[in-house]
């Protein structure tokens, strides 16, 4: 049982409150991703769980043990560092063995473990090399092996893929998912990349400025954001958030409390001809840029409501700049003055929406 709980955890560096009254539960065996922009406190949170920083106040529990004052080496946690932190003077074998020796694991057992783990990560033939002789991907594997060999209750990974090139990153991502399935251990993974978070986690914790914005499954994160911050963080490109004032001619029946309206780029239809569509918000727009990615096309368009991204899976429009975009009313998201989501229809709309067309 290795559920991790953070209770009222606060971390201050001098005057800076980096983590503000954090309460979190990370389920045993989950693949939890802590994600957020740089400086949001995700690394600090991770390092507090590992014991590399101690919280200014609050408690951290692993299972039913309070570990707030337990040394990092005694928490039964393994960590994979961003720059791998391999011991440069030791061979791969010694790197993997180092923690076991410190734990006084007998030699025969150590060798069996090293053999087993290096088989899993595919390092057997590199065991007697020094880290400097290995490629980036191989170093990453050594870091993983070093963590795995300790059979920890919790794996902590601090942006472990950020130093790899794009192709290798994709591959390692899939390997990590498989590894998690195979080990069944709790994984806590920190990243600033929402794609990694969406693709790997079964639970995502989104942090901003030391405050949890949302804790949810990836699909809920995507479909059901709690606030503007989440909406603008998740998705490629992220949700378009428009100011209510500039939309009033399109949506006259909005209630006063609505301050922002959002829609996902992939939910908008784009076409050169004006189509009469009921239950849609239709805006006459001008294409500013077109990014063709093959399977999809991302347009940046401008209209009275502002500049926004549109993602389309049909053939790119090349013959004209003047287009119409249409978003179904039921795919609109509404937020209040605190940028909190307004979910119930009766809370954002006074009357059913009429079909309207605004001119550009």
């Amino acid at each position, binding site marked *: 049982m290795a559920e991790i709980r953070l209770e009222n955890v606060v971390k201050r560096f001098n005057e800076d409150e980096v983590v503000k009254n954090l309460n979190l539960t990370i389920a045993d065996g989950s693949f939890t991703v802590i994600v957020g922009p740089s400086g949001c406190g995700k690394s600090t949170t991770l390092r507090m769980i590992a014991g590399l920083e101690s919280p200014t106040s609050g408690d951290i529990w692993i299972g039913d043990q309070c570990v707030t004052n337990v040394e990092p080496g005694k928490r039964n946690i393994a960590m994979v560092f961003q720059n791998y932190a391999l011991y440069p003077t*030791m061979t791969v074998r010694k790197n993997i063995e180092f923690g076991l020796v410190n734990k006084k694991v007998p030699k025969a057992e150590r060798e069996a473990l090293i053999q087993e783990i290096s088989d899993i990560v595919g390092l057997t033939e590199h065991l007697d090399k020094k880290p400097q002789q290995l490629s980036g991907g191989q170093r990453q594997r050594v870091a993983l092996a070093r963590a795995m060999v300790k059979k920890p209750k919790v794996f902590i990974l601090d942006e472990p893929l950020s130093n790899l090139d794009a192709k290798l990153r994709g591959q390692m991502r899939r390997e990590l998912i498989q590894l998690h399935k195979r080990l069944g251990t709790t994984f806590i993974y920190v990243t600033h990349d929402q794609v990694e978070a969406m693709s790997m986690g079964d639970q995502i914790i989104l942090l901003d400025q030391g405050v949890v914005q949302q804790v949810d499954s990836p699909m809920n994160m995507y479909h059901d954001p709690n606030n503007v911050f989440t909406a603008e963080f998740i998705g490629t490109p992220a949700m378009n958030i428009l100011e209510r004032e500039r939309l009033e001619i399109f949506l006259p029946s909005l209630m006063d409390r609505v301050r922002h309206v959002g829609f996902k780029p992939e939910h908008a239809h784009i076409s050169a001809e004006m189509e009469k569509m009921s239950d849609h918000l239709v805006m006459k727009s001008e294409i500013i840029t077109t990014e063709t990615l093959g399977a999809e096309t991302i347009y940046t368009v401008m209209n009275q409501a502002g500049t926004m991204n549109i993602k389309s899976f049909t053939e790119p429009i090349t013959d004209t700049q003047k287009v119409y975009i249409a978003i179904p009313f039921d795919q609109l998201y509404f937020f209040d003055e605190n940028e909190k989501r307004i979910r119930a229809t009766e809370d954002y709309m006074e009357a059913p929406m009429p079909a309207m067309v605004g001119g550009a």
Partner: protein
Amino acid sequence: MKKNPLWKVLNGIGLLILITIFALPFVWMISTSFKTLGETMVFPPKWIPDTLLWENFSKAWNSGPFLKYFFNSTIVALGILVLQFLTIIPAAYAFARYKFKGSNFFFGVTMVTLMIPTQLIFLPVYLQMSAWGLLDSLWALILPFASSAFGIFLLRQSFKQVPEELLEAARLDQASEWQIIMRIMVPMAKPVLITFAMFSFIAHWNDYFWPLVMTTTDASRTLPLGISKLREVDGGVAWNILMAGNLILVVPILFVFFFAQRQIIRAFVYTGVK
């Protein structure tokens, strides 16, 4: 300059003259050490003696307790080195890796001693050693150099370059601070430690001033002192014996220099460039 053959020739001659200026004295030293006393008194000088007088070396060696000197020199140079390692490694680690009250002050004290030459304070240290009854003992030659500000400075730089992540990884691996130093920091700083070791060993092996001041009997004298005493053999100066004695002192160092030239030069240049 690249194409003109005249330049090339002049350049070659220049290099030759340069080598001559620095190598010829040593050749002269070797030549003299094989001569008879009579041959040293010939003018113009003879470059190659009629017979190679090997007994000059045994005469030099037997003119004093040279085995004892040799032994003392070794103990002193190695003893200093071992103590320096024991004191500078933890100190450099603390200065590089811990934040503690007074660290700036203590590091300042360390740096001040880097500026103070031992030639300046030998008198009070001598009186101090005399008060402790350590005069004319190997302790008086070793203890004042048991630590090295310079070594701390070099090693601290090298420890500082180790990424913090590595130490955190080791802590998660349940390594104690002692293990972190011995298993991670020291192996990573090995080139710097070797550099410093060469520098320190050569300096103390060659040292003449400190043993001259601190010792009064052969029981604690070192090789350079023993060699300098050769001047007093047989009243007048016997240059052949004197050069033979010096050759005994110089050859081992030059021999090591021949093989580890790159490391030794780096050790000394490093100390200059910092």
